[in-house]
């Protein structure tokens, strides 16, 4: 009886599942072949796009379809218009080479656009020389994985973003390689999303840009050689872990720029050779711990408008300035960091220095007020001033100190 039941269930499953599997259709290059095939296809069909060049644009996918490219078929917009437009739920687009969108100041031209649709799966595509690479608008539960999104926006400042998300939630942006856009990844009004394992480099403005996007996580990404690093602005509950920020160099460049951020976490990141590794303004309750700040111009710039933040268990090595601030009030806590400039002693041998470390040097206070004074940095006079200040502090904020500086660096 039991076996019969099981057999029945199996048969039933086949009966019900079979019609939803859909047909498999091969599409070969011809005039408007893609648009025609997409129009003719039924819901749940699979389209196998054969190799070749398809010169089509405004390709609409308005039903649940699986579109798979065989050996990278090329969809070329000839710098005229936008390309793939997804408006239905549960569409899969995989293995295509999408290239050369148009440029326009009023419409955002995208290589692959998902609009008012959920559960899109955009995987393993090459998106080349587009204004916007992958554009998500009013979308949710989408997977954007393993795409190569490259453009050449070195001189072109009217460019778009690699992955652009606006009014979305529950996105998963995983393992993409993004270069040469305005912002590598741009989030505006996006919540509960994950950005993981992406490489974002050589973008004109930011590697990653958050605006008004709450409760998002980004981890294990690498941001290098971007115009100005990563900006996280006007957001709450952002978790940033295990990222690498490398060589974000320039006058207004920050590895991370935090502006009006609350209740966030910056942990176990690596900052190497950035002009300013971490810039914080009007932010509250940020936990900065177990990070490595190595060879930066400024490791941390924290304005007096920040409060309730904790900086602990970090390593500061080879930075020109460890910490600077623009006021005398300090409502944040520094504790148990390793500072390579600390020259105190540890008589009780508990691994913690017996005298506090003041990470704000006199000259950093001066350059904060008069930026052009930087020209005299590393002069003999500057060294004397710094030494005098150490003996008799007068200008530097005495509240900003690490009372338990570590003698040995943390093993991070």
């Amino acid at each position, binding site marked *: 009886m039991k076996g019969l039941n099981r057999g029945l269930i199996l048969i039933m499953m086949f009966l019900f599942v079979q019609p939803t599997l859909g047909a498999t259709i091969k599409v070969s290059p011809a005039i408007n072949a893609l648009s025609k095939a997409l129009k003719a296809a039924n819901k749940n069909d699979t389209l196998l796009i054969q190799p070749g060049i398809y010169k089509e644009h405004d390709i609409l996918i308005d039903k649940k379809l699986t579109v798979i490219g065989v050996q990278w078929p090329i969809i070329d917009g000839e710098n005229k218009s936008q390309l793939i437009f997804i408006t239905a739920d549960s569409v899969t687009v995989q293995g295509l080479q999408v290239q050369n969108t148009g440029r326009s*100041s*009023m419409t955002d031209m995208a290589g692959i656009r998902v609009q008012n649709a959920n559960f899109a799966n955009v995987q393993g595509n090459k998106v080349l020389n587009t204004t916007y690479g992958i554009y998500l608008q009013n979308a949710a539960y989408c997977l954007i994985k393993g795409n190569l999104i490259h453009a050449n926006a070195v001189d072109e*400042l009217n460019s778009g973003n690699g992955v652009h998300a606006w009014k979305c939630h529950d996105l998963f942006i995983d393992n993409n390689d993004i270069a040469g856009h305005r912002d590598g990844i741009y989030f505006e009004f996006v919540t509960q999303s994950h950005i993981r394992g992406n490489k974002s480099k050589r973008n004109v*403005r930011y590697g990653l840009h958050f605006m008004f996007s709450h409760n998002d996580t980004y981890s294990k990404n690498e941001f290098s050689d971007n115009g*100005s690093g990563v900006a996280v602005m006007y957001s709450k509950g952002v978790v940033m872990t295990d990222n690498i920020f490398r060589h974000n160099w320039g006058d*207004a460049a920050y590895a991370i*720029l935090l502006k009006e951020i609350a209740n966030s976490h910056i942990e176990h990141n690596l900052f190497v050779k950035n002009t300013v590794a971490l810039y914080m303004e009007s932010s509250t309750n940020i936990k900065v711990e177990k990070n490595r700040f190595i060879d930066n111009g400024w490791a941390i710039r924290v304005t007096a408008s920040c409060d309730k933040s904790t900086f602990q268990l970090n390593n500061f090595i080879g930075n020109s300035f460890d910490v600077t601030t623009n006021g005398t009030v300090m409502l944040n806590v520094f504790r148990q960091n390793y500072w390579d400039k600390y020259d105190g002693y540890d008589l009780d041998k508990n691994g913690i220095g017996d005298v506090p470390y003041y990470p704000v040097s006199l000259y950093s206070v001066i350059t904060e007020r008069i930026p052009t004074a930087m020209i005299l940095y590393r002069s003999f006079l500057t060294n004397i001033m710094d030494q005098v200040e150490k003996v008799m502090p007068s200008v530097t904020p005495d509240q900003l100190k690490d009372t338990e500086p570590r003698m040995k660096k943390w093993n991070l």
Partner: protein
Amino acid sequence: MKQVFLLSVAFVTLMISSCARKFEPIDYGKDGCAHCKMTIVEKQFAAEIVNEKGRVFKFDDISCMKIFTAENHLDDSKILLFVANYANPEQAFLDVNTAYMLFSESFKSPMNGYIAAFKSTDEAAEFQKKTGAVPADWKSIK
């Protein structure tokens, strides 16, 4: 004695003229916004203040400039305010008091100020028709 006086007058006038307050070009992709700290890349929405001492502040959005003047209690009549020409961003910046401004959510400015400036009403009218934008002016924007 008179010669010395004349010389000093000439020197002083030279000093003053060399410090004339004027618009400083924005280095796109390098300069940061004085208010929001973002790098300025979008030419269409850029703006600039030159204050009474000749110090220059650059902005990536007209709304950033507005908030900056309010926060720092700047007197609009004493400072110079410039906005980018939305229709022709490569051309010279416009004086905020003579520019014709429009508000529309289709102006995707970096900080969501949604404000664009135009040189003439004709140019603005064209965009107004296309986008349904509403007129705005410097005093009334927030």
